[in-house]
């Protein structure tokens, strides 16, 4: 079975992603220096590939931390309330914090994380995301640095999954519609 049989086409190639990440890192390099010692917070699982590539281009001192969250299931998507499975190892009070996301979709999850972090009184809080789907936004969230704005298509790869598959594909691809229709029980 091919790993790539469910992929309709490449939306963003590996070369384009890597070139853009250098630019995103330079934006961060202009914003922070060693004295700021920001904490880059990776939202698992999706953002770990982006974090791994992005941080290797940073030229200021920084720390990385991880957070893993899970939704409570049906009925909670409109509130964005999530369960924190893994909280930050570090105390962010008085720290500069950069949230690293793979994708901002409706914005509910990010909004919840931002509220949770704001309550911890960081000195500064920014959001960098590789992908942004503005057409899906249901709530206004501040996103400071965006890699690519993309249309409302079912994307996977570079950390993003479809039903836990394809996270390791090195580019961003579009899933064949029949695959997720099948998964959703739509014929």
């Amino acid at each position, binding site marked *: 079975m091919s790993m790539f049989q469910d992929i309709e086409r490449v939306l963003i190639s590996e070369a384009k992603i890597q070139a853009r990440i250098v630019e995103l890192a330079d934006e961060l390099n202009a914003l922070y220096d060693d004295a700021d010692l920001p904490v880059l917070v990776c939202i698992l*699982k999706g953002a*770990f*590939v982006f974090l*791994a590539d992005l*941080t290797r281009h940073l*030229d200021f001192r920084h*720390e990385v931390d991880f957070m893993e969250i899970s939704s409570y299931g049906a009925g909670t998507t409109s509130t964005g309330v999530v369960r924190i*499975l893994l909280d930050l190892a570090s105390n962010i009070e008085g720290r500069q914090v950069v949230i690293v996301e793979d994708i901002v979709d409706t914005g509910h999850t990010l909004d919840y994380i931002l509220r949770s972090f704001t309550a911890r009184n960081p000195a500064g809080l920014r959001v960098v995301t590789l992908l942004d789907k503005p057409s899906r936004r249901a709530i206004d969230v501040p996103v400071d640095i965006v890699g690519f704005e993309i249309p409302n298509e079912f994307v996977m790869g570079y950390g993003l999954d479809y039903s836990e598959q394809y*996270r*390791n594909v090195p580019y961003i691809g579009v899933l064949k519609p029949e695959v997720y229709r099948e998964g959703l029980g739509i014929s």
Partner: protein
Amino acid sequence: MTNPLPDSVDYVLLDEASIQRRVMEMAAEISADYEGIHNEDFLLVGVLKGSFIFLADLARRLTVPHRVDFIALSSYADKAEATGAVRLIMDTRADVAGRHLLIVEDILDTGYTLRYLYRLFEAREPASLRTAVLLSKPDRHKVDVSLHYLGFSIPDVWVVGYGLDFADRFRTLPYIAALKPRVYEG
């Protein structure tokens, strides 16, 4: 973009190109061994925080379908060095029973952490249990643990970069460097 070596770094032990070449070789070996296993049945478990860069690079070079999961551990502040006691902070999300499990670790030092993970996962009856470790320090091993895929054997020096840190610093250097002794000797 090439940044100057940080002050605290003594010398580069493994440069970026050597690491990438070795990760690609490991991925080819793993892909050959796990060929034919269904996506749902092959699980890579990355041990946080140290393994995230290795995992991101290794997984992207695998040609076999798999899932990715994470586990977070912490050592107890006191006596950890002597006893190897480990605290589980976050467990895997996936049920590992009946699955082929590959633990992905940045470094094998004393071996206590890997031994803990072996015991934890063996009790859950996976179909198979192997480890992929980027670095091993044979001089530091205190317990015997099986290693299936190893990147590099290195001498007993304090290394940072490519996921490895010193007090949360230097973790994201794209190469692996030896720290100047004055840094960790205080």
